[in-house]
């Protein structure tokens, strides 16, 4: 019998056909490119940046291969992240850049079937340093308002008193892309492997599902306001004792202290006169000025406090609701006026608190007494070892405060219980290392199998099955969008290890002749092997199930991959292995 006919017969087996279909589907899901991918994928677009102005949107999909990839800037090929940075290093203000991007669809082993090219034109914007002056100016603001009685749009011009600002051009602004090497497959690398920040927050008191939703939204919004979109924010639970509620926040690529600070703040902002609350963050505030407008460093406020401590002050404008403005008017109308440095003030100041911590004190000019003003300047300070770092600190504090004021406060206090900042270099090393471990493990297992059976007809199907299992499992992971982290990789190893064990059981059960079982046909012997396999499978499944629910989701990935892996094994690969073995060995 020629080997061709054997292979033909194997390929006609239903169980083998199912395996092949599973492998093809996995290929579709992983979209595996052997030759790699060129260009840099867009992770996020900074708000109001040149890129955002040009109409490029932050990616909405989390599928790695479906993300927009920059392939050329000004017709200059961009192959790597280094290319991108070299190009963007010396840009000039008002320089025009054409950005060529591609959306790749259905990529397989060598190439992509559809390449959707797009070209954007963007202009490099200047970066400003904004200094807010104490002098005020009146600004005419023209708004288009739709008048219902006249049934037409009218231009209404109002005059507003504002603080004057100075704009100093610092240089060209970043064009607003956050990029990473274009992925060459759809496997989602977990934070362990790609680097980033992971924060686990615990709620101080338990809340119901609705409020939890609110909190999750708020945190997401804060991060979005900050310009981060490649994020995961979800609830996780432990199952013992207190039934604590946790929120997991994962931010790929970036790791920064301020972000951790930002999401863990309850964000309870209060402005008080004396003990009376005038207005609070969120509902009393209708508008918060952002960078580029009425927000920046206070003129001449930077300077040394002591030899090693400099401070800088920031200020930014907000608009209050009429109710809050009225409340302020009512409170100030009864207060006496004092004179300081030749200027008249109300004797009490507005004090600002964030999460019950004092931020700053605002003097109120005498002319505002009893006036329901809606425009208010909020101020605060930052410090550092020199003037530059003090200015930076002030700007960072301002951004945080602006974000918190925009998004409002969380209904409960939250605490950081676990933080991980993972270096991308370490992640890269881990991937290489794990691939080496996997390769050597497969070689080692193959050797053991060959030594035990001394028969290629057994060893080769074992190795093929082992590799198929890894591939189908990875395909499944890309399909359902799992993040592959260290725990998930351990799960894959376990699943494949169990798979090899089962194949040994199948081989030994079906090939043994010694115990006078020659009266059993192949099917009956496979059935006996299957009994052991199903029994072992059931115990593994029930052992992993509690782990899925335990420990604030820290080992969920591990439980999930193990369970999926052994299930795929029992349903698909082990069946196919038995079918192949039957054809090859049956006499």
């Amino acid at each position: 019998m020629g080997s061709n006919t054997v292979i033909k017969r194997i390929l006609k087996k239903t169980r083998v056909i199912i395996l092949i279909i599973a492998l093809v589907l996995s290929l579709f899901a992983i979209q595996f490119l052997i030759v790699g991918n060129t260009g840099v994928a867009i992770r996020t677009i900074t708000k109001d940046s040149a890129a955002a102005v040009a109409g490029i949107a932050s990616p909405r999909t989390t599928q790695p291969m479906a993300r927009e990839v920059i392939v050329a800037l000004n017709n200059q090929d961009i192959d790597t992240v280094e290319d991108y940075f070299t190009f963007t290093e010396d840009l000039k203000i008002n320089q025009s850049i054409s950005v060529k991007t591609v959306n790749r669809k259905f990529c397989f082993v060598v190439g992509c079937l559809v390449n959707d090219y797009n070209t954007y034109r963007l202009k490099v914007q200047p970066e400003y340093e904004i200094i807010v002056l104490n002098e005020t100016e009146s600004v005419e603001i023209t708004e288009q308002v739709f008048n219902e009685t006249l049934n037409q749009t009218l231009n209404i011009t109002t005059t507003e008193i504002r603080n004057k600002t100075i704009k100093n051009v610092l240089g060209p602004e970043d064009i607003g892309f956050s990029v990473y090497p274009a992925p060459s497959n759809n496997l989602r690398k977990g934070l362990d492997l790609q680097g980033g920040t992971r924060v686990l927050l615990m709620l101080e008191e338990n809340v119901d599902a609705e409020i939890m939703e609110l909190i999750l939204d708020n945190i997401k919004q804060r991060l979005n306001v900050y310009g981060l979109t490649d994020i995961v924010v979800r609830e996780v639970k432990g199952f013992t004792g207190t039934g604590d509620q946790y929120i997991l926040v994962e931010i790929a690529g970036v790791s920064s202290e301020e972000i951790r600070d930002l999401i863990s703040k309850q964000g309870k902002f209060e402005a008080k006169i004396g003990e009376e609350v005038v207005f609070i963050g969120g509902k009393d505030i209708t508008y918060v000025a952002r960078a580029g407008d009425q927000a920046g460093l206070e003129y001449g406020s930077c300077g040394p406090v002591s030899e090693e401590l400099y401070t800088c002050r920031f200020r930014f404008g907000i608009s209050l609701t009429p109710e809050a403005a009225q409340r302020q008017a009512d409170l100030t109308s009864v207060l006496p006026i004092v004179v300081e440095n030749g200027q008249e003030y109300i004797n009490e100041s507005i004090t600002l608190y964030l999460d019950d911590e004092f931020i700053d004190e605002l003097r109120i000019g005498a002319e505002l007494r009893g006036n329901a003003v809606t425009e208010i300047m909020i101020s605060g300070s930052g410090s550092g070892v020199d003037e530059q770092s003090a200015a930076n600190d002030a700007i960072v504090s301002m951004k945080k405060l602006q974000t918190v004021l925009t998004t409002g406060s969380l209904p409960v206090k939250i605490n950081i219980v676990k933080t991980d900042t993972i270096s991308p270099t370490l992640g890269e090393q881990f991937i290489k290392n794990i691939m080496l471990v996997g390769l050597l493990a497969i070689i080692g297992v193959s050797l053991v199998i060959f030594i035990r059976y001394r028969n290629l007809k057994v060893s080769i199907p074992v190795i093929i099955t082992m590799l198929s299992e890894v591939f189908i499992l990875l395909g499944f992971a890309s399909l359902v969008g799992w993040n592959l982290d260290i725990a998930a990789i351990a799960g894959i190893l376990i699943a494949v290890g169990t798979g090899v064990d089962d194949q040994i059981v199948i081989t030994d059960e079906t090939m043994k002749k010694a115990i006078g079982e020659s009266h059993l046909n192949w099917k009956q012997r496979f059935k006996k092997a299957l009994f052991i396999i199903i029994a072992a499978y059931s115990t593994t499944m029930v052992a992993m199930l509690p782990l899925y629910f335990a420990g604030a989701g820290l080992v969920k990935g591990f439980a999930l991959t193990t369970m999926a892996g052994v299930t795929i094994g029992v349903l698909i690969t082990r069946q196919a292995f038995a079918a192949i073995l039957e054809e090859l060995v049956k006499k």
Partner: protein
Amino acid sequence: MNRKERRQLLKEKQISNINIEQHKDSSNKKRGFFQRIYEDEYKKLIFIPFTILLVAIILIVMNIAQTGEFVNKGFSLSGGTAITVVADNINIDLIEEHLESNLPNQQISIRVLSEAGVARGFIIESDAQDNGEEIINELEKLSPGIKDSDNLSVTTMGSSLGDSFFRDAILAIVIAFIFMSIVVFIIFKQASPSLAVILCALSDIIVTIAAINIFGIKLSTAGIAALLMLIGYSVDTDILLSTRVIREKKGRVMTRIYNALKTGLTMNATTLVTVLVGIFISQSPELKQIFTILLIGLVIDIINTWIQNVGILRLYLERKNTPNNKKIIGAEKVGE
């Protein structure tokens, strides 16, 4: 008992006596020393795993008496900080000395991360949750620029989360164990073989935990996962053994055991190879701990399955096949 039944019984007895004779004939010639001990002295052999189990329990109790915990918890279970640094040229003594002299009041441990013996970086662990910044600042003094580089990973774990994770994990292990026991009972439907499997898995875990303590391993979240994996792996070989011995009727019990042993040891060998590769090559401390715990557990499982579980099964079969077992004295040695 009527006459027909009596005759049947007598016939069976004769057959079994013949079997015993044949067995004795063939065995004494070919069997090696270890084989003879393994086949004939199984009742005495059972004492080995039981002694190990007893010693393990004593060691764990001593650990509880000394530390209040039955395992030594790593920073991911007790709370603390870990800083991982990727670096090629590492002078671990220098770093240790520097940290000790500059941060004298802190419990800091430092380990090299290596891949196949080549150092790739190092990891600093501390029990405190708030000294990450300080340690990094000290590292910055040793190697300027490291603070803002891409080579630094920092993890802090709150002790409350560590505690609740540990409670969860213990509960997960207990529930997994109960579920597993139920499944085993459903599979074998007989009390003794099922209990043998469960006892084997239980001793695996207990002895492994004792061994972890002896080797000074500090258990991490990944280690807990490894203990659960161990339940799965341990039960696999036991199910194989029990199925071959209890459910199959053909052939001698010893032959069936040897068949199971051959399959089981091949299974263990493939797992062992993977685990050894993992221990020597893998760089991630989490994976390394998983593999180390699996290696320990695997070795213990080999003893527990092929001595303890085999012994219990043979005792069980012996009792079951000789309802009035005092009458057939010769059968005791063979276990048929």
